[in-house]
C-alpha cells in the first residue's frame, strides 16, 4: 500500500508530462519529443527560484509554468513553424533533436552531477493504519492532479481551449473563423510547456535535476500518453498513474533494473492489443 502511494506520486508527475504531450498533439498534430527537456527546464527554474534565490516555493508555482510555457512557445514559433508543412518524420526528428539540444544547453550551463531542491513540505509523516504517507507525497499527488485538471479544464472549456479544439479539428476552418493558426499553435505549445514546467516543479525534489531527468520524463511521459491514448486527455491522466504504480511495484518486488522493463512491457502490450490506447477519446478514421 505504501508502495502504491509512492507510485501514485510519480504517476501524477508522469500524468502532467503526458498531458502536455497530448495537449500539443491534439491541437497541432505534432508529437513533441522535446517535452522531457521542458520538464528539465521547469525543474532547473525551480532550483533557481527556490535554492539559488531563496524565494521559496510559491513564486515557483506561478513563475515556472509561465517560463517553460514561453520557452515551448518560442520553440514552436522559432523552430517548428518554418517546417510545419513538412511530414511527420521531419517534425518528430526535429523535436527529438531540439529536446537533446536543450538538455545539452543545460549541461553546458550547469556542469554538475546533479542539483537538488529541498522538499516543499517537510514534516512528520502521517500514519493511516500501517501506512506511512509523507506530506510531500500527498502534496505532490494532489498538486499535480489539480494542475492536470486545470490543464484539462482550460483545454476543454475555456475560450482559448475552444480555439485549440477548433484548430485540432480543422486548421483551415479555424483560421476562417478568425483564430490565427500561428497564435493557436503557440498557445498550445505554451499550455503544453506550462504543464511540463509544473511536472518539473513536482519532480525536482524527489528526482533531482540532471539531463537524465529529461530522458526519464520523456520516456515515462510518452509511455503514459500512448498507454492512455495519445489523443486522450483523460487517458494521459490515467496512463501516468498506471505507469507510476506499475514502475514502483516492479522496483519494490522484482528489481530496480525491472523498473524500466515494466514500463516498456506495458507499452508493448498496449500497442499490440489496443493501439488506440486504453482510454481513446474518439474513433479516428483515416482514408
Amino acid at each position: 500500500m505504501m508502495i502504491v502511494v509512492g507510485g501514485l506520486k510519480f504517476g501524477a508527475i508522469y500524468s502532467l508530462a503526458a498531458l502536455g504531450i497530448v495537449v500539443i498533439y491534439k491541437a497541432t498534430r505534432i508529437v513533441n519529443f522535446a517535452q522531457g527537456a521542458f520538464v528539465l527546464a521547469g525543474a532547473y527554474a525551480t532550483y533557481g527560484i527556490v535554492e539559488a534565490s531563496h524565494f521559496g516555493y510559491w513564486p515557483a508555482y506561478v513563475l515556472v509554468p509561465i517560463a517553460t510555457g514561453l520557452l515551448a512557445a518560442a520553440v514552436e514559433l522559432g523552430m517548428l513553424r518554418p517546417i510545419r508543412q513538412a511530414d511527420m518524420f521531419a517534425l518528430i526528428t526535429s523535436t527529438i533533436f531540439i529536446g537533446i539540444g536543450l538538455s545539452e544547453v543545460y549541461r553546458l550551463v550547469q556542469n554538475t552531477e546533479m542539483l537538488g531542491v529541498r522538499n516543499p513540505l517537510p514534516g512528520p509523516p502521517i500514519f493511516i493504519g500501517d501506512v506511512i504517507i509523507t506530506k510531500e507525497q500527498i502534496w505532490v499527488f494532489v498538486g499535480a492532479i489539480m494542475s492536470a485538471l486545470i490543464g484539462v479544464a482550460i483545454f476543454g472549456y475555456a475560450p482559448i481551449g475552444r480555439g485549440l479544439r477548433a484548430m485540432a479539428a480543422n486548421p483551415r476552418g479555424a483560421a476562417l473563423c478568425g483564430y490565427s493558426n500561428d497564435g493557436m499553435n503557440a498557445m498550445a505549445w505554451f499550455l503544453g510547456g506550462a504543464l511540463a514546467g509544473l511536472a518539473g516543479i513536482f519532480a525536482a525534489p524527489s528526482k533531482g535535476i540532471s539531463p537524465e531527468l529529461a530522458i526519464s520524463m520523456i520516456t515515462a511521459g510518452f509511455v503514459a500518453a500512448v498507454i492512455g491514448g495519445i489523443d486522450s486527455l483523460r487517458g494521459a491522466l490515467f496512463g501516468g498513474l498506471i505507469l507510476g504504480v506499475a514502475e514502483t511495484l516492479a522496483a519494490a518486488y522484482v528489481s530496480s533494473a525491472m523498473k524500466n522493463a515494466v514500463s516498456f512491457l506495458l507499452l508493448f502490450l498496449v500497442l499490440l492489443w489496443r493501439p488506440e490506447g486504453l482510454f481513446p477519446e474518439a474513433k479516428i478514421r483515416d482514408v
Partner: protein
Amino acid sequence: MSSGRIRAITGALAPSAVLLAIAILGLFFDTYWQYVFAISITAAVIGSALAMLVGYARCITIATGAMLAIGAYGATIPVVHGSMPFLAAVVTATLLGACAGWMLAVPGVRFRSHNLALITLVFQAVVIIVLRESKTLTGGAEGMHVPPPLILGISFAKDADFLLLCGALYALAIIPMTVLLAGAFGKNLRALASNENAARAFGIDVRHHLIAAFTFSSALIAFAGAVSAPRFRIIDPDSYGIFTSIFTLAYPIIGGMGSIWGGLAGGGILRVIPELLRPLADYIELIFCVLVVATLTFFPDGLASAFWMGTGRRSDAKSGASFATPEIELAPIAELFAATEALGPGAPAQAGGAPILAVEGASKSYGALRAVDDVSLTVAPCSLHGLMGPNGAGKTTLFNIVSGFLAADAGNVRMSGALLDQVRLESRIGLGMTRTFQHAAVFERLSCLDNVIIGLGRNTIARGLVRSVGQAFANADSRSERRAAQSALAAVGLGARTDDLAGALPLGEQRRLEIARAIVSRPRIILLDEPVSGVSVEEARRLRELLLAINGELGIAMVVIEHNIAFLSSLCQWISVMSQGRILAEGDAATIIADPRVRHAYFGEQEVAA
C-alpha cells in the same frame, strides 16, 4: 559489354571503391589518424545502413545503438567464450543483427512515426539492460575485453592493418546495400514513404518492405558493430546507449536522404568532426542538434544533396516543353503495346462476355452513416463507365471497396466473374486492376520514369530484390522495364519528362503521369477518381482525348468518377449516378442529364429551367 551495363556495375561498386580508397589513404597518416579513419568509415557504413531505413523508408529508429551492441557482443562473445574464428563470428553477429531487426520490425512496423520511434526506443533500452545484467557473458557494466582480429593466423592488431581490414570488409559488405538502394527495392521504399496508399495500389506491400528494410539495415549495422569492436579494446553497454542511437540518426538526415551517398558522407564526415574540433568537444552534441534542426528546416534533402545540387544543378529548361504541343501525340500507344510485350502478356482485352467488373449489393457504414448502401454496378469489358453524384454520395468509398482499400460490410465484387473478396489490395494489380486517386498521388521524390516502372506492379519483396540485382547488371529485363515505362510516358505526352521529379510537374501533368502509371501494366480495368479535378478546361479536353485513345487502342475498361458533367458525358457511353450511398439512376449521358431525379439530387427541390 554495353555502356549501360558498365555504368550500372560501376555505380554499384562506387561506394565500395570510395571506402577502400579512404582506408588506403589512411595508411599515409600516423596511427592516431588511422584510428580516426577506421571509426570514420565505420560511421559511413552505419550511415549507409540508416540511409535505407531513415532516408528511404522514413522510419525513425532509435535502436541503432542496440544493433551495434548486438553486432559487437555477438561477434566478441563467440570469439572469447567459444574461440570461434573472427570472420565466422562476424558473420554470426550479422545474422544475429538481421534476426534482431526482423524481431523488432514485425511488431514495430504496424506503426509509423512516434509509435515506431517509441518501440525502437524500448528495444534499445531493453537490449542495454540485458547486456548489463548478463554479467557472466558480457562482463556487465564494466565491459568486456575484445581481442584483436585474427584471420588465418594473421593478427590485425596494428592500426594500419586494422584500417585495411575494415576497408576491405566494409567495401564488400556495402555492395548489397548499394544494389538494393539503387534498385527496385529502394525505389519501392521511397514510393511507400512518399505515398503509402498509391504504393499499395501498385502492389507494394508496406509491411513486408519495412520489415525487410529493418532486417537489412540492422544486419549491416550489426556487421559494422562486429568489425569495429576490436578497435575499442574494451566494449561496454553504455557506449552503445540511446545517445549513440540518436546521433547516428543525424547521419542520413544531415548527409542526405535520397541516396546511399548521403548516409556515407554524413556518417564519415560527422564522426570525424569531434576529432577535428577537439577544443569544442564539449559543444559537439549541441552543434549536432543545431545542424540537424537547421538541415531539416533549410535543406530537407540533406546538406550533401544541397551541395550536390549547388555544383551540378540540372537544367530546368525542359519545364513547360510539353505545353508547347497543343495535341497529345497518340501514336506511341501502339508502341506501348509492343514495348510491354517483352514483360509477358498483358491482360487480354475481350469485348463482350462476362462483365469486367460486377459489384453486387455492396454496403459500407461508418457508424450511423451508410456511405455505400446496397450498391450494384456492372461494367462491360472495354467500356467507359461514368460515375457521378453530389459530394458525399459514396463514390470514392465505392472505389475503395472495389480496389481493396476498404472491406465492404456486405456484398461482393467480381472481376470477370472471379470473386475479389479474398484478394488482397496489393495483389489486385496482378489481376489487371489499377486506379488513380482523387488527389493526384504520384511518388513525388521519384522520377517520372521510376513512377511508371512501379506501375508495372512487379513489386513483391522477392521480385523487388531480384529486380534490384538485375538492375545492377542492367540486364535485359530491366531494360525492357525502362522501355515499357518510356513508351507509357510517351503515350501520355510526357516523353520529355522522363528524368524529372514527379513532384515538380504541374497538376495536369501529374494527372497524366498517374494515367501512364495506371496503363503501363496493361490492365483490364482502370478506376479513375476525378481525373480532371483542378485542371484547366484545355487540359481536361486533352485528358479526355488521351483516355478515349487508351480505351480505343488498348481496350482497357475505365470507371471514371467526375463532377464535371460535360467531361463525363463526352467521355462515357454509360453513366451511373449515386446519391446518399445508393445508385440513383443509370443510362447514357442524355438520359441521365434529362432525368428529373438526378436534377433533384444535384439542384435540390426546385426544378431548374433547362
